Protein backbone atom coordinates (compact mmCIF):
# COMPACT_ATOMS: atom_id res chain seq x y z
CA UNK A 1 0.00 0.00 0.00
CA UNK A 2 1.54 3.36 -0.94
CA UNK A 3 1.61 6.60 1.05
CA UNK A 4 -1.13 8.49 -0.76
CA UNK A 5 -3.57 5.65 -0.24
CA UNK A 6 -3.15 5.57 3.54
CA UNK A 7 -3.59 9.33 3.56
CA UNK A 8 -6.87 9.09 1.68
CA UNK A 9 -7.93 6.28 4.01
CA UNK A 10 -7.23 8.55 6.96
CA UNK A 11 -9.28 11.29 5.37
CA UNK A 12 -12.28 9.04 4.78
CA UNK A 13 -11.98 7.81 8.35
CA UNK A 14 -12.22 11.37 9.59
CA UNK A 15 -15.29 11.97 7.44
CA UNK A 16 -16.87 8.74 8.71
CA UNK A 17 -16.26 9.73 12.31
CA UNK A 18 -17.65 13.20 11.71
CA UNK A 19 -20.86 11.74 10.26
CA UNK A 20 -21.18 9.18 13.05
CA UNK A 21 -20.54 11.71 15.81
CA UNK A 22 -23.04 14.17 14.36
CA UNK A 23 -25.67 11.43 14.18
CA UNK A 24 -24.84 10.24 17.68
CA UNK A 25 -25.56 13.73 18.94
CA UNK A 26 -28.98 13.66 17.24
CA UNK A 27 -29.65 10.26 18.78
CA UNK A 28 -28.79 11.43 22.30
CA UNK A 29 -30.29 14.94 22.27
CA UNK A 30 -33.76 13.74 23.34
CA UNK A 31 -32.28 12.10 26.46
CA UNK A 32 -30.22 15.15 27.36
CA UNK A 33 -33.20 17.40 26.78
CA UNK A 34 -35.35 15.18 28.97
CA UNK A 35 -32.85 15.44 31.80
CA UNK A 36 -32.21 19.18 31.35
CA UNK A 37 -35.91 20.03 31.18
CA UNK A 38 -36.67 17.96 34.27
CA UNK A 39 -34.41 20.16 36.42
CA UNK A 40 -35.69 23.49 35.07
CA UNK A 41 -38.51 25.59 36.48
CA UNK A 42 -41.73 25.52 34.40
CA UNK A 43 -40.88 29.10 33.41
CA UNK A 44 -37.41 28.18 32.20
CA UNK A 45 -38.76 25.20 30.27
CA UNK A 46 -41.02 27.40 28.15
CA UNK A 47 -38.80 30.45 27.94
CA UNK A 48 -38.33 32.25 24.60
CA UNK A 49 -35.64 32.20 23.28
CA UNK A 50 -34.81 28.67 24.38
CA UNK A 51 -32.81 28.42 27.56
CA UNK A 52 -30.57 25.39 27.38
CA UNK A 53 -29.22 25.20 30.94
CA UNK A 54 -31.27 26.02 34.03
CA UNK A 55 -29.90 28.57 36.54
CA UNK A 56 -30.04 26.06 39.36
CA UNK A 57 -30.66 22.34 39.28
CA UNK A 58 -34.13 21.86 40.68
CA UNK A 59 -35.07 18.31 41.55
CA UNK A 60 -38.51 19.16 42.91
CA UNK A 61 -40.26 18.01 39.74
CA UNK A 62 -39.21 14.44 40.49
CA UNK A 63 -40.94 14.46 43.87
CA UNK A 64 -43.92 16.17 42.33
CA UNK A 65 -44.24 13.57 39.55
CA UNK A 66 -43.69 10.74 41.99
CA UNK A 67 -46.13 11.90 44.65
CA UNK A 68 -48.90 13.30 42.48
CA UNK A 69 -49.22 10.43 40.05
CA UNK A 70 -49.06 7.04 41.81
CA UNK A 71 -45.58 6.35 40.46
CA UNK A 72 -44.95 3.68 43.06
CA UNK A 73 -47.88 1.70 41.64
CA UNK A 74 -46.67 2.22 38.08
CA UNK A 75 -43.24 0.88 38.99
CA UNK A 76 -44.59 -2.10 40.84
CA UNK A 77 -47.18 -3.02 38.19
CA UNK A 78 -44.68 -2.65 35.36
CA UNK A 79 -41.94 -4.60 37.10
CA UNK A 80 -44.29 -7.31 38.30
CA UNK A 81 -45.98 -7.85 34.94
CA UNK A 82 -42.62 -7.72 33.15
CA UNK A 83 -41.42 -10.44 35.51
CA UNK A 84 -44.45 -12.62 34.83
CA UNK A 85 -44.21 -11.99 31.09
CA UNK A 86 -40.58 -13.06 31.12
CA UNK A 87 -40.38 -15.99 33.54
CA UNK A 88 -43.40 -17.96 32.36
CA UNK A 89 -42.82 -17.61 28.61
CA UNK A 90 -39.23 -18.73 29.13
CA UNK A 91 -40.31 -21.90 30.92
CA UNK A 92 -43.32 -22.74 28.76
CA UNK A 93 -41.77 -21.77 25.43
CA UNK A 94 -38.52 -23.61 25.95
CA UNK A 95 -40.43 -26.75 26.98
CA UNK A 96 -42.68 -26.59 23.93
CA UNK A 97 -39.81 -25.66 21.64
CA UNK A 98 -37.81 -28.64 22.86
CA UNK A 99 -40.72 -31.01 22.22
CA UNK A 100 -41.32 -29.59 18.75
CA UNK A 101 -37.66 -29.80 17.80
CA UNK A 102 -36.57 -33.07 19.37
CA UNK A 103 -39.56 -35.39 19.81
CA UNK A 104 -41.60 -36.91 16.99
CA UNK A 105 -45.15 -37.15 18.26
CA UNK A 106 -48.51 -37.46 16.50
CA UNK A 107 -49.99 -34.01 15.82
CA UNK A 108 -46.67 -32.23 16.08
CA UNK A 109 -47.08 -30.34 12.81
CA UNK A 110 -50.59 -29.12 13.47
CA UNK A 111 -49.84 -28.06 17.06
CA UNK A 112 -46.83 -26.08 15.89
CA UNK A 113 -48.83 -24.48 13.11
CA UNK A 114 -51.56 -23.40 15.55
CA UNK A 115 -48.97 -21.72 17.75
CA UNK A 116 -46.98 -19.89 15.11
CA UNK A 117 -50.01 -18.88 13.04
CA UNK A 118 -50.98 -16.26 15.63
CA UNK A 119 -47.66 -14.51 14.95
CA UNK A 120 -49.13 -13.27 11.67
CA UNK A 121 -51.99 -11.52 13.44
CA UNK A 122 -51.45 -7.89 14.46
CA UNK A 123 -51.83 -7.42 18.21
CA UNK A 124 -54.78 -4.98 18.07
CA UNK A 125 -56.90 -7.76 16.52
CA UNK A 126 -56.75 -9.60 19.86
CA UNK A 127 -57.56 -6.68 22.11
CA UNK A 128 -61.37 -6.41 21.93
CA UNK A 129 -61.99 -10.17 22.36
CA UNK A 130 -59.39 -10.29 25.13
CA UNK A 131 -61.08 -7.32 26.76
CA UNK A 132 -64.45 -9.10 26.61
CA UNK A 133 -62.84 -12.19 28.08
CA UNK A 134 -61.27 -10.23 30.94
CA UNK A 135 -64.58 -8.59 31.57
CA UNK A 136 -66.30 -12.01 31.82
CA UNK A 137 -63.62 -13.15 34.26
CA UNK A 138 -64.00 -9.93 36.25
CA UNK A 139 -60.40 -8.97 35.56
CA UNK A 140 -60.88 -5.57 33.95
CA UNK A 141 -58.87 -2.98 35.84
CA UNK A 142 -56.67 -5.47 37.68
CA UNK A 143 -52.94 -6.09 37.64
CA UNK A 144 -53.60 -9.70 36.62
CA UNK A 145 -55.14 -8.54 33.34
CA UNK A 146 -51.82 -6.93 32.42
CA UNK A 147 -49.97 -10.22 32.16
CA UNK A 148 -52.36 -13.16 32.09
CA UNK A 149 -52.61 -13.40 28.29
CA UNK A 150 -48.84 -13.09 27.92
CA UNK A 151 -47.77 -16.08 30.00
CA UNK A 152 -47.03 -17.90 26.78
CA UNK A 153 -45.10 -16.61 23.79
CA UNK A 154 -45.49 -18.04 20.28
CA UNK A 155 -42.54 -15.93 19.17
CA UNK A 156 -40.23 -17.33 21.84
CA UNK A 157 -41.41 -20.85 21.05
CA UNK A 158 -40.62 -20.36 17.38
CA UNK A 159 -37.23 -18.82 18.11
CA UNK A 160 -36.10 -21.42 20.64
CA UNK A 161 -37.21 -24.25 18.40
CA UNK A 162 -34.73 -23.01 15.79
CA UNK A 163 -31.97 -23.34 18.34
CA UNK A 164 -33.00 -26.78 19.59
CA UNK A 165 -33.06 -27.96 15.98
CA UNK A 166 -29.41 -27.05 15.62
CA UNK A 167 -28.12 -29.32 18.41
CA UNK A 168 -26.49 -32.59 17.39
CA UNK A 169 -28.19 -35.89 18.16
CA UNK A 170 -25.31 -37.64 19.93
CA UNK A 171 -25.70 -36.04 23.34
CA UNK A 172 -29.35 -36.86 23.37
CA UNK A 173 -28.80 -40.47 22.33
CA UNK A 174 -26.32 -41.02 25.13
CA UNK A 175 -28.82 -39.63 27.61
CA UNK A 176 -31.58 -41.86 26.28
CA UNK A 177 -29.32 -44.90 26.75
CA UNK A 178 -28.76 -43.76 30.33
CA UNK A 179 -32.53 -43.91 30.80
CA UNK A 180 -33.31 -40.18 30.93
CA UNK A 181 -36.88 -39.18 30.15
CA UNK A 182 -37.52 -36.33 27.69
CA UNK A 183 -37.99 -33.81 30.49
CA UNK A 184 -34.63 -34.72 32.02
CA UNK A 185 -32.97 -34.40 28.62
CA UNK A 186 -34.57 -31.01 28.18
CA UNK A 187 -33.66 -29.80 31.63
CA UNK A 188 -30.16 -31.20 32.12
CA UNK A 189 -28.75 -31.38 28.61
CA UNK A 190 -30.58 -29.12 26.20
CA UNK A 191 -31.33 -26.00 28.24
CA UNK A 192 -27.68 -25.30 29.11
CA UNK A 193 -26.83 -25.56 25.41
CA UNK A 194 -29.21 -22.82 24.34
CA UNK A 195 -28.32 -20.43 27.14
CA UNK A 196 -27.51 -17.54 24.79
CA UNK A 197 -30.86 -17.90 23.05
CA UNK A 198 -32.61 -17.93 26.43
CA UNK A 199 -30.85 -14.71 27.39
CA UNK A 200 -32.00 -13.15 24.12
CA UNK A 201 -35.59 -14.18 24.82
CA UNK A 202 -35.43 -12.78 28.36
CA UNK A 203 -34.23 -9.45 27.03
CA UNK A 204 -36.82 -9.22 24.29
CA UNK A 205 -39.71 -10.22 26.55
CA UNK A 206 -38.60 -7.75 29.19
CA UNK A 207 -38.26 -4.88 26.72
CA UNK A 208 -41.68 -5.57 25.22
CA UNK A 209 -43.30 -5.90 28.60
CA UNK A 210 -41.69 -2.77 30.00
CA UNK A 211 -42.57 -0.56 27.05
CA UNK A 212 -46.00 -1.81 26.04
CA UNK A 213 -48.64 0.91 25.89
CA UNK A 214 -51.86 -0.03 24.16
CA UNK A 215 -53.07 -3.04 26.15
CA UNK A 216 -52.56 -1.45 29.62
CA UNK A 217 -54.30 1.66 28.31
CA UNK A 218 -57.30 -0.39 27.16
CA UNK A 219 -57.70 -2.79 30.03
CA UNK A 220 -56.95 -0.67 33.10
CA UNK A 221 -57.99 2.79 34.16
CA UNK A 222 -57.46 3.40 37.86
CA UNK A 223 -54.05 4.89 38.69
CA UNK A 224 -53.12 2.03 41.04
CA UNK A 225 -53.51 -0.47 38.20
CA UNK A 226 -51.59 1.32 35.46
CA UNK A 227 -48.12 0.62 34.11
CA UNK A 228 -45.43 3.24 33.52
CA UNK A 229 -46.34 3.72 29.83
CA UNK A 230 -50.03 4.17 30.46
CA UNK A 231 -49.27 6.19 33.59
CA UNK A 232 -47.17 8.61 31.58
CA UNK A 233 -50.03 9.05 29.14
CA UNK A 234 -52.30 10.10 32.01
CA UNK A 235 -49.56 12.34 33.40
CA UNK A 236 -49.70 14.27 30.13
CA UNK A 237 -53.39 15.01 30.56
CA UNK A 238 -52.89 16.01 34.19
CA UNK A 239 -49.87 18.28 33.89
CA UNK A 240 -50.51 19.60 30.35
CA UNK A 241 -47.53 21.90 29.79
CA UNK A 242 -45.73 21.55 33.09
CA UNK A 243 -42.79 20.13 31.18
CA UNK A 244 -40.36 19.69 34.08
CA UNK A 245 -42.81 17.36 35.84
CA UNK A 246 -43.57 15.47 32.60
CA UNK A 247 -39.88 15.07 31.81
CA UNK A 248 -39.12 13.96 35.36
CA UNK A 249 -41.82 11.31 34.98
CA UNK A 250 -40.50 10.23 31.59
CA UNK A 251 -36.97 10.03 32.94
CA UNK A 252 -38.03 7.92 35.90
CA UNK A 253 -39.86 5.59 33.52
CA UNK A 254 -36.95 5.01 31.16
CA UNK A 255 -34.05 4.91 33.58
CA UNK A 256 -34.39 1.29 34.83
CA UNK A 257 -34.25 -0.12 31.28
CA UNK A 258 -31.44 2.21 30.27
CA UNK A 259 -29.37 1.23 33.32
CA UNK A 260 -29.96 -2.44 32.55
CA UNK A 261 -28.95 -1.76 28.97
CA UNK A 262 -25.69 -0.11 30.00
CA UNK A 263 -24.82 -2.93 32.37
CA UNK A 264 -25.64 -5.69 29.88
CA UNK A 265 -25.10 -3.76 26.64
CA UNK A 266 -23.33 -6.54 24.80
CA UNK A 267 -25.99 -9.08 25.71
CA UNK A 268 -28.77 -6.67 24.74
CA UNK A 269 -27.35 -5.81 21.35
CA UNK A 270 -26.30 -9.33 20.47
CA UNK A 271 -29.45 -10.88 21.88
CA UNK A 272 -31.81 -8.66 19.96
CA UNK A 273 -29.90 -8.76 16.68
CA UNK A 274 -29.35 -12.48 16.85
CA UNK A 275 -32.94 -13.37 17.65
CA UNK A 276 -34.28 -11.29 14.79
CA UNK A 277 -31.88 -13.06 12.52
CA UNK A 278 -33.05 -16.52 13.40
CA UNK A 279 -36.69 -15.45 13.58
Amino acid at each position, binding site marked *: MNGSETLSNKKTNIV*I*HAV*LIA*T*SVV*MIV*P*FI*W*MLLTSVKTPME*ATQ*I*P*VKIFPDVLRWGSYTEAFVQSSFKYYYFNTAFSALMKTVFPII*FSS*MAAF*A*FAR*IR*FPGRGICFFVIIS*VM*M*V*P*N*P*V*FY*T*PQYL*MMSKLGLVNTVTALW*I*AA*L*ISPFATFLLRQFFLGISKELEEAA*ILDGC*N*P*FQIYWHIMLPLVKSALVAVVIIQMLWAW*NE*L*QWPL*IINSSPEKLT*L*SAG*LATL*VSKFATNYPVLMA*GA*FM*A*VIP*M*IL*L*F*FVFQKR*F*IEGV*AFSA*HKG
Partner: protein
Amino acid sequence: MNSRSRNMWAYFMVAPTLIGTLVFWSWPAFYSIYLGFLKSENFGLVNHWVGFDNYQKLFKDEEFWQNLKNTLKYMVLFVPSTIVLSTFFAVLLNAKIKGQSAYRVIFFLPQVTMPAAAAMVWVVLFAQDYGLLNHVLGTRVSWLSDPRFAMYSVVLVGVWAAIGFNMLLILAGLQGIPKTLYEAAEIDGAVRFNKFRYITLPLLTPTLFFTTVVLMIGASQIFDSIYLLIGKTNVALPSVRSLVYAYYQNSFVYYDQNYGAVIVNILLFINLILTGLQFLFQKKWVVYD
Protein backbone atom coordinates in the same frame (compact mmCIF):
# COMPACT_ATOMS: atom_id res chain seq x y z
CA MET B 1 -38.34 -45.65 26.75
CA ASN B 2 -41.37 -46.64 24.71
CA SER B 3 -42.91 -44.27 22.21
CA ARG B 4 -46.17 -44.03 24.17
CA SER B 5 -44.61 -42.49 27.23
CA ARG B 6 -42.36 -40.33 25.03
CA ASN B 7 -45.47 -38.94 23.35
CA MET B 8 -47.05 -38.26 26.73
CA TRP B 9 -43.99 -36.25 27.71
CA ALA B 10 -44.21 -34.30 24.45
CA TYR B 11 -47.88 -33.42 25.01
CA PHE B 12 -47.15 -32.43 28.57
CA MET B 13 -44.37 -30.09 27.45
CA VAL B 14 -46.36 -28.55 24.61
CA ALA B 15 -49.64 -28.23 26.54
CA PRO B 16 -49.15 -24.92 28.38
CA THR B 17 -48.13 -23.03 25.24
CA LEU B 18 -50.72 -24.73 23.06
CA ILE B 19 -53.63 -24.21 25.44
CA GLY B 20 -52.54 -20.64 26.23
CA THR B 21 -52.30 -19.85 22.52
CA LEU B 22 -55.70 -21.32 21.75
CA VAL B 23 -57.46 -19.55 24.62
CA PHE B 24 -55.76 -16.17 24.60
CA TRP B 25 -54.76 -15.70 20.96
CA SER B 26 -56.36 -18.06 18.41
CA TRP B 27 -59.87 -17.80 19.75
CA PRO B 28 -59.74 -13.98 20.02
CA ALA B 29 -58.51 -13.73 16.42
CA PHE B 30 -61.55 -15.64 15.16
CA TYR B 31 -63.84 -13.81 17.54
CA SER B 32 -62.66 -10.48 16.14
CA ILE B 33 -63.75 -11.60 12.67
CA TYR B 34 -67.10 -12.73 14.12
CA LEU B 35 -67.56 -9.39 15.91
CA GLY B 36 -67.30 -7.65 12.56
CA PHE B 37 -70.57 -9.29 11.48
CA LEU B 38 -72.51 -8.27 14.59
CA LYS B 39 -74.23 -5.19 15.84
CA SER B 40 -74.10 -4.99 19.63
CA GLU B 41 -76.55 -3.11 21.77
CA ASN B 42 -76.72 -2.45 25.49
CA PHE B 43 -72.97 -2.79 25.95
CA GLY B 44 -72.79 -6.14 24.20
CA LEU B 45 -75.73 -7.75 26.01
CA VAL B 46 -77.73 -8.00 22.79
CA ASN B 47 -76.03 -8.97 19.55
CA HIS B 48 -77.65 -8.99 16.11
CA TRP B 49 -76.15 -10.65 13.07
CA VAL B 50 -75.91 -7.94 10.42
CA GLY B 51 -73.77 -9.62 7.77
CA PHE B 52 -71.58 -7.20 5.88
CA ASP B 53 -73.37 -4.05 7.09
CA ASN B 54 -70.39 -2.90 9.15
CA TYR B 55 -68.09 -3.34 6.19
CA GLN B 56 -70.48 -1.44 3.92
CA LYS B 57 -70.57 1.37 6.42
CA LEU B 58 -66.80 1.28 6.64
CA PHE B 59 -66.26 1.49 2.90
CA LYS B 60 -68.61 4.47 2.69
CA ASP B 61 -66.83 6.22 5.54
CA GLU B 62 -64.46 8.84 4.19
CA GLU B 63 -62.62 8.94 7.48
CA PHE B 64 -61.71 5.26 7.07
CA TRP B 65 -60.18 5.88 3.64
CA GLN B 66 -58.26 8.81 5.04
CA ASN B 67 -57.00 6.64 7.93
CA LEU B 68 -55.97 3.90 5.52
CA LYS B 69 -54.19 6.48 3.38
CA ASN B 70 -52.43 7.86 6.45
CA THR B 71 -51.28 4.39 7.47
CA LEU B 72 -49.96 3.62 3.99
CA LYS B 73 -48.31 7.04 3.81
CA TYR B 74 -46.59 6.38 7.11
CA MET B 75 -45.35 3.02 5.82
CA VAL B 76 -44.13 4.54 2.56
CA LEU B 77 -42.24 7.31 4.33
CA PHE B 78 -40.97 5.39 7.33
CA VAL B 79 -39.81 2.08 5.84
CA PRO B 80 -37.52 3.31 3.03
CA SER B 81 -35.97 6.06 5.17
CA THR B 82 -35.23 3.61 7.94
CA ILE B 83 -33.77 1.06 5.52
CA VAL B 84 -31.59 3.59 3.69
CA LEU B 85 -30.26 5.23 6.84
CA SER B 86 -29.73 1.93 8.66
CA THR B 87 -27.83 0.53 5.68
CA PHE B 88 -25.77 3.70 5.41
CA PHE B 89 -24.70 3.59 9.05
CA ALA B 90 -24.16 -0.16 8.98
CA VAL B 91 -21.78 0.23 6.04
CA LEU B 92 -19.92 2.99 7.88
CA LEU B 93 -19.61 0.90 11.03
CA ASN B 94 -18.53 -2.14 9.07
CA ALA B 95 -15.43 -0.26 7.89
CA LYS B 96 -13.46 -1.35 10.98
CA ILE B 97 -13.40 2.07 12.57
CA LYS B 98 -12.44 2.91 16.14
CA GLY B 99 -15.19 3.19 18.70
CA GLN B 100 -17.56 0.90 16.82
CA SER B 101 -19.09 -0.49 19.99
CA ALA B 102 -19.66 2.98 21.44
CA TYR B 103 -21.57 4.02 18.32
CA ARG B 104 -23.60 0.84 18.43
CA VAL B 105 -24.63 1.54 22.02
CA ILE B 106 -25.59 5.13 21.25
CA PHE B 107 -27.60 4.22 18.16
CA PHE B 108 -29.33 1.44 20.05
CA LEU B 109 -30.36 3.63 22.97
CA PRO B 110 -33.73 4.74 21.49
CA GLN B 111 -34.64 1.07 21.11
CA VAL B 112 -34.56 0.50 24.87
CA THR B 113 -36.46 3.71 25.54
CA MET B 114 -40.13 3.45 26.33
CA PRO B 115 -42.00 4.92 23.32
CA ALA B 116 -44.34 6.80 25.64
CA ALA B 117 -41.45 8.58 27.34
CA ALA B 118 -39.67 9.25 24.07
CA ALA B 119 -42.83 10.77 22.59
CA MET B 120 -43.15 13.09 25.59
CA VAL B 121 -39.69 14.57 25.10
CA TRP B 122 -40.25 14.90 21.36
CA VAL B 123 -43.36 16.95 22.12
CA VAL B 124 -41.11 19.38 23.99
CA LEU B 125 -38.46 19.36 21.24
CA PHE B 126 -41.10 20.00 18.57
CA ALA B 127 -42.88 22.81 20.46
CA GLN B 128 -43.56 25.80 18.28
CA ASP B 129 -42.44 28.69 20.46
CA TYR B 130 -39.97 27.23 22.91
CA GLY B 131 -38.97 24.01 21.15
CA LEU B 132 -35.33 23.21 20.57
CA LEU B 133 -35.88 22.17 16.95
CA ASN B 134 -37.31 25.52 15.85
CA HIS B 135 -34.64 27.27 17.89
CA VAL B 136 -31.84 25.43 16.12
CA LEU B 137 -33.38 25.73 12.65
CA GLY B 138 -34.47 29.34 13.17
CA THR B 139 -38.01 28.45 12.10
CA ARG B 140 -41.40 28.77 13.75
CA VAL B 141 -43.13 25.68 12.42
CA SER B 142 -45.75 23.96 14.51
CA TRP B 143 -44.42 20.50 13.80
CA LEU B 144 -47.13 18.53 15.51
CA SER B 145 -50.29 20.52 14.92
CA ASP B 146 -49.85 21.71 11.36
CA PRO B 147 -51.49 19.07 9.11
CA ARG B 148 -48.78 19.66 6.52
CA PHE B 149 -45.97 18.67 8.88
CA ALA B 150 -47.49 16.37 11.51
CA MET B 151 -46.99 13.17 9.51
CA TYR B 152 -43.34 13.96 8.83
CA SER B 153 -42.74 14.63 12.50
CA VAL B 154 -44.26 11.29 13.44
CA VAL B 155 -42.08 9.60 10.80
CA LEU B 156 -38.99 11.38 12.14
CA VAL B 157 -39.58 10.02 15.63
CA GLY B 158 -40.22 6.56 14.21
CA VAL B 159 -36.99 6.58 12.22
CA TRP B 160 -35.03 7.89 15.20
CA ALA B 161 -36.27 4.97 17.27
CA ALA B 162 -35.80 2.31 14.59
CA ILE B 163 -32.36 3.01 13.10
CA GLY B 164 -30.24 1.42 15.83
CA PHE B 165 -31.97 -1.93 15.78
CA ASN B 166 -32.18 -2.24 12.01
CA MET B 167 -28.62 -1.06 11.61
CA LEU B 168 -27.55 -3.98 13.78
CA LEU B 169 -29.49 -6.45 11.67
CA ILE B 170 -27.95 -5.11 8.49
CA LEU B 171 -24.51 -5.02 10.09
CA ALA B 172 -24.88 -8.71 10.91
CA GLY B 173 -25.81 -9.28 7.26
CA LEU B 174 -22.75 -7.32 6.09
CA GLN B 175 -20.45 -9.31 8.31
CA GLY B 176 -21.72 -12.46 6.65
CA ILE B 177 -20.36 -11.40 3.25
CA PRO B 178 -17.08 -13.23 2.53
CA LYS B 179 -14.06 -10.90 2.63
CA THR B 180 -12.46 -12.70 -0.31
CA LEU B 181 -15.04 -11.18 -2.67
CA TYR B 182 -13.88 -7.69 -1.80
CA GLU B 183 -10.24 -8.69 -2.09
CA ALA B 184 -10.86 -10.05 -5.56
CA ALA B 185 -12.62 -6.83 -6.53
CA GLU B 186 -9.70 -4.79 -5.19
CA ILE B 187 -7.28 -6.71 -7.36
CA ASP B 188 -9.52 -5.83 -10.31
CA GLY B 189 -9.27 -2.20 -9.18
CA ALA B 190 -12.90 -1.67 -8.25
CA VAL B 191 -13.70 1.68 -6.60
CA ARG B 192 -15.50 1.90 -3.28
CA PHE B 193 -18.93 2.66 -4.73
CA ASN B 194 -18.75 -0.14 -7.26
CA LYS B 195 -17.85 -2.59 -4.53
CA PHE B 196 -20.98 -1.52 -2.70
CA ARG B 197 -23.12 -1.61 -5.82
CA TYR B 198 -21.99 -4.95 -7.22
CA ILE B 199 -20.97 -6.98 -4.17
CA THR B 200 -22.54 -5.62 -1.00
CA LEU B 201 -26.00 -4.77 -2.25
CA PRO B 202 -26.80 -8.03 -4.07
CA LEU B 203 -25.54 -10.17 -1.20
CA LEU B 204 -27.40 -8.05 1.30
CA THR B 205 -30.73 -8.38 -0.50
CA PRO B 206 -32.10 -11.19 1.70
CA THR B 207 -31.34 -9.19 4.86
CA LEU B 208 -32.79 -6.01 3.39
CA PHE B 209 -35.89 -7.82 2.23
CA PHE B 210 -36.48 -9.43 5.61
CA THR B 211 -35.91 -6.11 7.40
CA THR B 212 -38.27 -4.31 5.02
CA VAL B 213 -41.12 -6.75 5.59
CA VAL B 214 -40.70 -6.69 9.37
CA LEU B 215 -40.66 -2.89 9.32
CA MET B 216 -43.76 -2.76 7.11
CA ILE B 217 -45.68 -5.06 9.42
CA GLY B 218 -44.66 -2.95 12.41
CA ALA B 219 -45.42 0.33 10.64
CA SER B 220 -48.89 -0.82 9.59
CA GLN B 221 -49.74 -1.10 13.30
CA ILE B 222 -48.53 2.35 14.35
CA PHE B 223 -50.37 3.65 17.39
CA ASP B 224 -48.15 4.70 20.32
CA SER B 225 -46.48 7.70 18.74
CA ILE B 226 -49.70 9.07 17.24
CA TYR B 227 -51.52 8.69 20.53
CA LEU B 228 -48.78 10.49 22.44
CA LEU B 229 -47.28 12.93 19.93
CA ILE B 230 -50.48 14.12 18.33
CA GLY B 231 -53.22 13.44 20.88
CA LYS B 232 -56.97 13.38 20.58
CA THR B 233 -57.64 17.14 20.48
CA ASN B 234 -54.97 18.01 17.92
CA VAL B 235 -56.26 19.64 14.70
CA ALA B 236 -53.70 17.63 12.75
CA LEU B 237 -55.09 14.30 13.97
CA PRO B 238 -57.19 13.61 10.81
CA SER B 239 -54.05 13.86 8.70
CA VAL B 240 -52.09 11.30 10.73
CA ARG B 241 -54.74 9.08 12.34
CA SER B 242 -53.80 5.45 11.63
CA LEU B 243 -56.00 2.37 11.38
CA VAL B 244 -55.03 1.20 14.86
CA TYR B 245 -55.70 4.63 16.30
CA ALA B 246 -59.14 4.61 14.67
CA TYR B 247 -59.69 1.10 16.02
CA TYR B 248 -58.82 2.28 19.53
CA GLN B 249 -61.04 5.34 19.24
CA ASN B 250 -64.06 3.46 17.90
CA SER B 251 -63.78 0.51 20.26
CA PHE B 252 -62.75 2.13 23.52
CA VAL B 253 -63.73 5.77 23.28
CA TYR B 254 -67.00 5.54 21.32
CA TYR B 255 -67.65 1.95 22.54
CA ASP B 256 -68.55 0.65 19.09
CA GLN B 257 -66.78 -2.72 19.24
CA ASN B 258 -68.19 -3.92 15.95
CA TYR B 259 -67.03 -0.95 13.95
CA GLY B 260 -63.65 -1.15 15.68
CA ALA B 261 -63.45 -4.83 14.80
CA VAL B 262 -63.98 -4.28 11.09
CA ILE B 263 -61.20 -1.66 11.04
CA VAL B 264 -58.77 -4.01 12.69
CA ASN B 265 -59.90 -6.90 10.46
CA ILE B 266 -58.85 -4.84 7.45
CA LEU B 267 -55.48 -4.44 9.12
CA LEU B 268 -55.34 -8.21 9.62
CA PHE B 269 -55.99 -8.64 5.91
CA ILE B 270 -53.14 -6.26 5.03
CA ASN B 271 -50.80 -8.09 7.39
CA LEU B 272 -51.68 -11.48 5.96
CA ILE B 273 -50.80 -10.20 2.50
CA LEU B 274 -47.47 -8.88 3.77
CA THR B 275 -46.66 -12.16 5.51
CA GLY B 276 -47.69 -14.09 2.40
CA LEU B 277 -45.35 -11.99 0.26
CA GLN B 278 -42.55 -12.56 2.73
CA PHE B 279 -43.10 -16.30 2.64
CA LEU B 280 -43.22 -16.35 -1.13
CA PHE B 281 -40.08 -14.34 -1.74
CA GLN B 282 -38.14 -15.73 1.19
CA LYS B 283 -38.06 -19.11 -0.50
CA LYS B 284 -36.62 -17.52 -3.60
CA TRP B 285 -34.01 -15.30 -2.01
CA VAL B 286 -32.97 -16.47 1.37
CA VAL B 287 -30.36 -19.16 1.59
CA TYR B 288 -30.48 -20.95 4.92
CA ASP B 289 -27.17 -22.12 6.22
